[in-house]
């Protein structure tokens, strides 16, 4: 590193940072140096300690030990106000925006200037105009934030940081909610910021992003910093190996599908919610035995609702769908138990909310929804020993660690919790498997395993409907890809024809709603 010889001090210098939460050593002797004016990536799996590290840098947590130097000065950062005072700005993974405030109100919050908001608002408006000219960051200051598309909300977060005079900008998993096009726009903004001398710390678990935009990269694993590299000198394969600690297969072994008879037939399915908003508009599709159909889309475009309806959690308000010979309509709705009897299994998007009960033991979580059967229990009575026995078997089969049926579900890692859900749903040998976000918050090793299981299940003849916001996952697993936007299916692509650009345009609704997209673009430029 160009430390002593360089005439300008390092933007960030962390040494021997330690932080524990109870028994979990989230950061262990972590050191990091960031050169000013560089885009520096930190990559690692979920739970590697990346977010903890930047939270310490932004004053959300205090470190147990270690020193922080900003621009060469040793400092203590006790809270966000301290961090802002040191010129550090942060764009959080979950936006820190007040949803029903205007852009202007959000930007000036905490920096109002005087007791009355009027003068602060005027100053903020001027500053916003200047920032949007300097960096091409245009947003209408009087728009209500929750009415803005996610990409623009993120832009407001960046503006907020810059308005507070940030010279070091931290972005925590900034692309998780963006379409590929929005990601490109974000990267353009980051490049423009770098040109103006802003130092950027980019936290991500996506190898592609590190390769695309960073100058330097640091790799974290298990709470420790395992490597500092220059991006130009490394490769995705090397980074993946460093992240996981062993060689990983980045590509899934995907053989051509042999689709059979239709399993699920959906016709003009509609869902209008209690507020009168159409969440699903005339959805039609067919799923056959032995194929995986992926649903791509920016989260919040109706995918969750589609899963809820197909799994029987919500009743459709129009149209119908048929599973085998059973038709479900608004007049004759179903419920999850009945659909399970029809051969539908469901791995829900939010495993903590719908997949498992965190305080339950693994053995109990393993039979949720299936406790009516007679293999684990004698009808009325639960037999803990039988439950644990069958759970232990599935734990071996699905490589769930630690293999302790009595252990509380909450004490398993995200990947192993997901495997518990998957094991439960797959072992009923379903005809149709609905899967939502199968690898959200799951480490690379477990992702590999889960993907293999899904392909194997498909090869046995199960029809799989896969909903994921991870485009790579959709593209590597699906035989056909449907794209959802605004509650509608806006396009279908065969596996061979799908690429990120084509999917991204569909996800953004371009083509379907040219007018809307055009005006959004106008606001963006």
């Amino acid at each position: 590193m160009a430390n002593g010889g360089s005439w300008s001090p390092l933007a960030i210098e962390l040494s021997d940072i330690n932080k524990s939460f109870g028994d979990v050593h989230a950061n262990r002797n972590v050191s990091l140096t960031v050169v000013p004016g560089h885009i520096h990536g930190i990559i690692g799996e979920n739970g590697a300690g990346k977010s903890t590290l930047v939270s310490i840098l932004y004053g959300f947590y205090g470190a147990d030990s270690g020193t922080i130097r900003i621009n060469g000065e040793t400092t203590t950062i006790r809270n966000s106000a301290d961090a802002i005072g040191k010129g550090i700005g942060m764009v959080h993974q979950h936006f820190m925006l007040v949803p029903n405030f205007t852009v202007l109100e959000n930007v000036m919050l905490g920096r109002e200037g005087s007791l009355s908001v009027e003068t602060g608002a005027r100053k903020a408006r001027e500053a916003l105009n200047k920032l949007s000219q300097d960096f091409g960051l245009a947003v209408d200051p009087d728009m209500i934030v929750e009415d803005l598309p996610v990409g623009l909300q993120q832009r407001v977060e960046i503006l907020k940081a810059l308005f507070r005079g940030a010279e070091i900008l931290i972005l925590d998993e900034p692309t998780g909610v963006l379409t590929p096009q929005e990601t490109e726009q974000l990267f353009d903004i980051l490049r423009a910021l770098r040109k103006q001398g802003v130092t950027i710390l980019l936290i991500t678990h996506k190898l592609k992003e590190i390769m695309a935009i960073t100058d330097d990269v640091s790799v974290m694993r298990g709470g420790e910093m395992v490597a500092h590299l220059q991006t130009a000198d490394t490769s995705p394969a090397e980074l993946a190996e460093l992240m996981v600690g062993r060689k990983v297969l980045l590509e899934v072994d995907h053989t051509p599908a042999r689709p059979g008879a239709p399993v699920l037939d959906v016709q003009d399915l509609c869902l209008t919610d209690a507020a009168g908003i159409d969440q699903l508009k005339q959805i039609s599709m067919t799923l056959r035995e032995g194929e995986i159909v992926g649903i791509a889309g920016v989260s919040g475009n109706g995918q969750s609702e589609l899963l809820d309806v197909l799994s029987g959690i919500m009743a459709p308000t129009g149209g119908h769908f048929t599973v085998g010979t059973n038709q479900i309509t608004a007049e004759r709705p179903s419920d999850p138990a009945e659909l399970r009897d029809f051969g539908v299994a469901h791995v829900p998007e939010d495993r903590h909310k719908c997949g498992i009960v965190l305080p339950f033991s693994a053995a109990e979580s393993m039979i949720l929804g299936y406790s009516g059967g007679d293999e684990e229990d004698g009808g009325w009575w639960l037999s803990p020993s039988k439950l644990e026995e069958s759970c232990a078997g599935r734990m071996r089969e699905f490589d769930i660690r630690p293999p302790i049926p009595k252990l509380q579900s909450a004490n398993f890692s995200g990947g192993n919790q997901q495997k518990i859900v998957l094991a439960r749903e797959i072992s009923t040998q379903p005809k149709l498997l609905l899967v939502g976000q199968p690898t959200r918050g799951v480490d690379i090793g477990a992702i590999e395993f889960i993907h293999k299981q899904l392909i194997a299940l498909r090869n046995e003849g199960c029809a799989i409907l896969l909903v994921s916001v991870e485009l790579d996952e959709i593209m590597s697993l699906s035989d056909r890809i449907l794209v959802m936007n605004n509650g509608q299916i806006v396009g279908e692509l065969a596996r061979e024809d799908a690429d990120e650009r084509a999917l991204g345009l569909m996800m953004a609704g371009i083509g379907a709603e040219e007018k809307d997209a055009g005006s959004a673009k106008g606001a963006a430029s």
Partner: protein
Amino acid sequence: MADLWLQFLLTIDATLRVATPLILCAMAGIFSEKSGVIDISLEGKMLMSAFVAAAVATLTSSALAGMFAAIGVAIMLGLLHGLASITLRGNQVISGLAINILASGLTVTVGIAMFQQGGQTPNLARAERFRPIELPFAEQLGGIPIIGTIYREVISGHNILVWIALGAVLFTAFMLTRTRFGLRLRAVGEKPEALDSAGVSVARTRYLALIIAGILCGMAGAYLSTAHGSGFVREMTAGKGYIALAAMIFGKWQPRGALLACLLFGFLEAVASRLQGVELPLIGQAPVDLILALPYLLTVILLAGFVGKAMPPRAIGEPYIKER
């Protein structure tokens, strides 16, 4: 005809007087709840300050001293609620309920110990109460039809706290929309982490909101025992704190809406007391019990039926914990 007009004006006048503590409490509730703290302790704060106002007024022979003591004690209770629900991150409903029970018991116990009148305070003399303020020329202008009578019967003759209550509505509206504190207050009730990451203390903002709520509740209590009434009677708030809460929710946490809802409740109560013993066509003697129960019934209906449609502050009831 003229008599009916006079009856109407007197009812409006009574509406204002009955609605005053509701308005003060509802504004207090707006401050607490906009900051994200559920405030069912409006009732307890008002009851305790009603007692303290009357007791101190008796001892010092000054209504003003009584009111300031009432404000002080309401602020203390607000800080207690804050300690439990902000600092110690307890359940806000339970903390509020505890304060209500505390106030209900303590006022009677201390009242009996101090005055030996079964929990009441002695009847207050004129100087120990807030007196009606007769506006200039009320009698002379009273002769003018309509405008004059409105001036004499409705506008003139209220004590200072009625005017303060109406002023509190303007104050609340101004604070919420035009000031730095208001911006932060609204932000902390919607998305506390946004305020935190902007470098402003969530706890400080919420405590400040509870202190302002305490001041308003203190005045509401003082009004009950030293302006509207002439001494403290046990349980004299009789659920008015909850009615104010319902009015605030019905008014969608907005000062203007809450004011209108308070006036509606006040009107029902005023009508109820006017109708006592009056012969009505078809029904006969007015069912006083039913009419007296109307504001409470309406409270239940509003709380149960309209909450779903109103949009509460998003972070309400959740203690702020930095995410892991």
